[in-house]
Each structure stands twice: as C-alpha cells, then as structure tokens.
C-alpha cells in the first residue's frame, strides 16, 4: 500500500459517505435535522421515512454507483487508448445506448425495457467499433479512437432522426434521457454489484495497467500479454459503461474529468487511480444529482447539465494550475 493510496482512500471514503448523507438530507422538501435522525431510529413520520428511504436513498445510491462506474470506465479507457481525451463514451457507447433507449421509448415500452435496450445498444456499438477497428488485422489505439468517434457521429445522426420524427409528447422524456437523469433509476443494487466487482478485479491489475500505460512495446518487453489485456480492458469498460447508462442515461463528463482530476492530485499510478476514480465519480454524480433535484425545485434538472457545469470549470482550473 503506497502513501498515495492511503491518502486517496483516507480522503475519498469519508467524502463518499458524506456525499450520500448530503443527498439524503437535502431535497425539495425540507426535513429538519431532528426528523432526519428520527428516520434512522425508525421513529419518524411515515411521510419523512418515505421521502428519505424510498425516494432519496435509492436515487442517491443509483447516482453513486453510476458515477463510480463511469469514473472507472473513463480511467480504463484512458489507459487503453493512451489518449487523455478518451472517455467511456468515446467508442460510441452512449450513442448506441441512446438510440436503443429512444427506440424503446418510441415503441412505448416500460422503463425497464428502455434500460435493457440501452444496455444492448451500448454493447452493439462496442461490437461494431471493435469489429471495424480490428479490420484486416492492424489494431492501434488511434484507429480504435477514430472508429469510435465516427461511429458516435453516426449514432448522433440517428438520434437526431428519432427526435425529429417522434411525437411531441415523447420529446421531454427523450431529452431528459439524453442529458442524463437519475429520476427513473429504481434498483441501484445490480449497478453496485458490478461496481464492487470491478474495483476488486481492478486492484490486482493495477501494476499491469501501469506498465501498459507506458506503451505496448515496453509492456510486451516487461512480460505483459498486451493483446489479451487490452481486449479485456476494452470489454470490461464497455460492460461497465453500459451498466451505468441503464441507471442514469447518457451522463457526460464524469468519465472524462474524474480520472484526470485524480491524476493531477495523486499522480498516474493506476493502483490508486482506478479505485479513486470509482469513489470520486460516485461523489461527483451524487452531489450533482442532489443539486439537480433542489436547485430550481419543484422543477427538476437533468443531472447531466450539472455534471457539465461543475466539471468543466474545475477541470480547466486544475489543468491551468498544472504544468
């Protein structure tokens, strides 16, 4: 255990708990502190315990899990592609997921089917990008990145098409989904399962990823089986992102800025960055969703608006401060 790891966990673990508590404490209905404490003693009124335990808690947990998944997927993608601009959506994942979700909404399916359609849309996009980038055999990060960007543009065109032909009544729901919205997340536990699993698997892989980040030649020279490792990262990142997307829709920026911010603070050691990205992503999305619920209550904002508005200035500031 390095000092950076202990430092990161020492700061981020309490901060995570705090973020979830903040999400439970604030909402459009003001609950006095004494009544909040009563909720956990089981002595609160039915209204207060419903608000906190049935509305706020699942939503806060869903936001945290999805943020964590996006954070860790971003960190993995940046190592895999050795490109600082890579994010979980760079391979057209969010586009594929969005097209799946919008088509399901257009067909009038239930929210569960919309989530499933998003999941399979994301995986379909992964397969397309992977297949095309692989092409006749040469497989480089640049090629993968380019293919992803172009496929994403294609999905973008399909999204515009679907929006243009959809009935007016469906549009608000669709736009909220595209901007990222936690309000329809209901069962956060599968996402939590994936998150815990991924963090546990990523911890022992940290050293390998560190070597890989230096370049495939050096990694191969140091005895890393480059190709299988790259494939596993790729598939893992795709599954992680698809899971996150089913919870909260296409939330932007979390996967891009969280790993970068952490690198600027803790240095580029994947053994620290991967778990830290999970926690910091979770914190960011939980707090952003709390703002989205309260800022103009009783009106509700999509959480993606907040992540972008918070994330961009913080990221630019950190980048400006670093050399």
């Amino acid at each position, binding site marked *: 255990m390095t000092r950076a790891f202990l430092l990161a966990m020492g700061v981020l673990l309490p901060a995570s708990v705090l973020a979830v508590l903040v999400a439970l404490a604030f909402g459009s209905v003001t609950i006095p502190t004494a009544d909040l404490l009563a909720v956990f003693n089981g002595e609160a009124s039915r209204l207060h315990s419903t*608000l906190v335990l049935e509305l706020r808690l699942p939503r806060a947990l869903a936001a945290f899990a999805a943020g964590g998944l996006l954070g860790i997927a971003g960190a993995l993608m940046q190592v895999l592609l050795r490109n600082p601009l890579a994010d979980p959506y760079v391979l057209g994942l969010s586009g594929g997921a969005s097209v799946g979700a919008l088509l399901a909404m257009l067909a009038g399916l239930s929210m569960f089917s919309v989530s499933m359609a998003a999941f399979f849309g994301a995986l379909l996009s992964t397969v397309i990008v992977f297949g095309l980038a692989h092409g006749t055999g040469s497989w480089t990060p640049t090629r993968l990145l380019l293919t992803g960007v172009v496929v994403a543009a294609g999905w973008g065109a399909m999204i515009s098409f679907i929006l243009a032909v959809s009935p007016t009544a469906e549009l608000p729901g669709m736009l909220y989904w595209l901007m990222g919205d936690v309000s329809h997340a209901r069962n956060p536990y599968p996402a939590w399962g994936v998150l815990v699993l991924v963090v546990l698997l990523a911890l022992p892989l940290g050293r390998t990823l560190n070597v890989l980040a230096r370049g495939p030649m050096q990694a191969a020279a140091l005895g890393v089986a480059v190709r299988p490792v790259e494939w596993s990262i790729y598939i893992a990142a795709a599954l992680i992102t698809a899971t996150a997307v089913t919870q909260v829709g296409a939330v932007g920026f979390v996967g891009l800025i969280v790993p970068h911010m952490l690198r600027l603070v803790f240095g580029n050691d994947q053994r620290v960055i991967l778990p830290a990205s999970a926690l910091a992503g979770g914190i960011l999305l939980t707090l952003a969703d709390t703002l989205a619920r309260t800022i103009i209550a009783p009106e509700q904002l999509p959480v993606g608006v907040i992540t972008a508005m918070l994330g961009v200035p913080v990221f630019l500031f950190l980048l400006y401060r670093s050399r």
Partner: protein
Amino acid sequence: MTFKVFRRHMALLVATFLCATPALAEPVTVTDDEDRELRLEQTAQRIVSLAPHITEVVFAVGAGDRLVGATQYSDYPPEAEDIPRVGGYSRIDLERVLELEPDLVIAWRSGNSGSQIERLRDLGIPVYVSEPRRFEGVASSMRRIAHLAGTEATGDAAAQAFLDRIEALRNEYAQRDPVRVFYQVWEQPLMTINDQHLIAEAIEVCGGSNVFGHLDRLVPRMDREAVIEADPEVIIGGGMGEDRPDWVRAWERWEDLTAVQRDNLFFIAPSLLQRHTPRIAEGTALMCEELERARLRRPGQ
C-alpha cells in the same frame, strides 16, 4: 323555543348525520383512461393535479377547493395560480407530491413520465390516469373526476352543459358548405394536426374539413410546400400565448393562397382550443364564427 321545535331540530340533525356519515365513508370506484379500476375508500379530499388542463377540469366539476397541488402553468381559473406547485408536468417533483399527502393524484398519460406515475402507485397513492381524446372523452373525464371527488351534482351538470353546447354548434354548422381548413399548431417546426386530434373535431363540428386530416401522425410536422399545394381556404394559427403569433400574418407572403386572397388568416387562443377542458366549447364557438366569416367572403356571396 318550544320543545316541539327543538325536537324537530334534533330530528333534522340526526337525519343529516345519518345521511351524511355513510355518504362520506362510501367507497367510490371509477375506471380511468388506462382501463384501470380505481377504488377510493371515501371521496377524494386532497387532490394533486399533474397537468394544467386537469387542474381546470377539477375546478370545472366543482372540486377546485380539494386541490392541494398542481403543476406549473395551471393558470385557469385564476384561483389555480395559488395552488402549491409540484414541478412541471414532464418531470414531477415526487417529494413535493408526497409532502402534500394526497388521497388522489390525477395524471396525464401523454404528458407525465410513465415511470413517475408508476412510482406514485408503488408508494401507495391512488392515481387516476386521464387521457381524453374526443369531446365525449372530455365530458366523461369530467363525470369520473366529479365522481371521485363526490361532486357529481356540479360535475354532471357541467359535463352535460358542455355536450349540449357542442351539440348546438354541431346542429347549426356541421351541415353547412365545407370549408377547407389548415390548422397550424406551431411555426418552427411547422406543425398541424390530423383528424384524430381534438381540434379536428372542433373543425368538423363547425362544418370545416381539415386539409391534412388523412395524415398518420397526430401532430405531423409539415413542409411549407404541402400547405401551399393544399391551398386551404382558411388558416387558423394556435401558438402558445393569448396573442396572435406573427407567423399567422407571415402567410401573406404567398399571395396566391386562397386563404390569403380572402384574408382568412385567423387566430384562436390555444388555451381555448388545445386543452382538454370544457373551455374547448368556447374555442369551438370561435372556430365556427371564423369559418362562417370565411363562407361569407366567398366570391358571389
């Protein structure tokens, strides 16, 4: 006060109690527009409305004083402005709804988010889903909501008055010489309605025919060329506010259009025509007047 008078008073009081108490506790059962049977143990006392037109209907059936929450833009009747808000109709603030502890939520299927309606049901709140289509549906919504609130007397009368008014307009105008109407919902994008839409029924009542009635989509997005080719005799603009939008006059650019040549560019406030409330009878009456005006402007009249 003699004993006899006192006894009569007591008897009346007891009689009132006997009548009133079972009436209060009487469960009410109603089927909503999703064919779901809704049963309330007693008539609704705390209602939350999830759309502006629902707020209007609740007032129209005499249950406005039971409304404890409503969505943004619930602006009619004016008293509705004072009802606590629970967010916009496309995204309801569930916390606010729960805080109001309603015993009935009236939702709008094509406006509210299905998952939020589902959520409210799971939290044990009775939800009535409303989706009126035709004039008949507006009246039957009124009757059912009145039944849930226990204001049948006012509600049934209001629904009947609404239907009677429509029927009177139909008797007067429906058989007159057809007028070809283009109803413009919006300019950017250019949108109209097909014959499934409530506004198309108003056009039909007034003896008009909707030039794009045959299209598949309820609210089709149109190409300007198609409108020019259809050459309607009347163009009626809707829009958002209470004032005529500029784009109604903008049709004057196309001088060859019959509607432009005869100056048949009309505007009817969308609050009277686009909301599924009894006020649509007023909008229909205005529509009939405008179409009649167009008939009088025909050459040779």
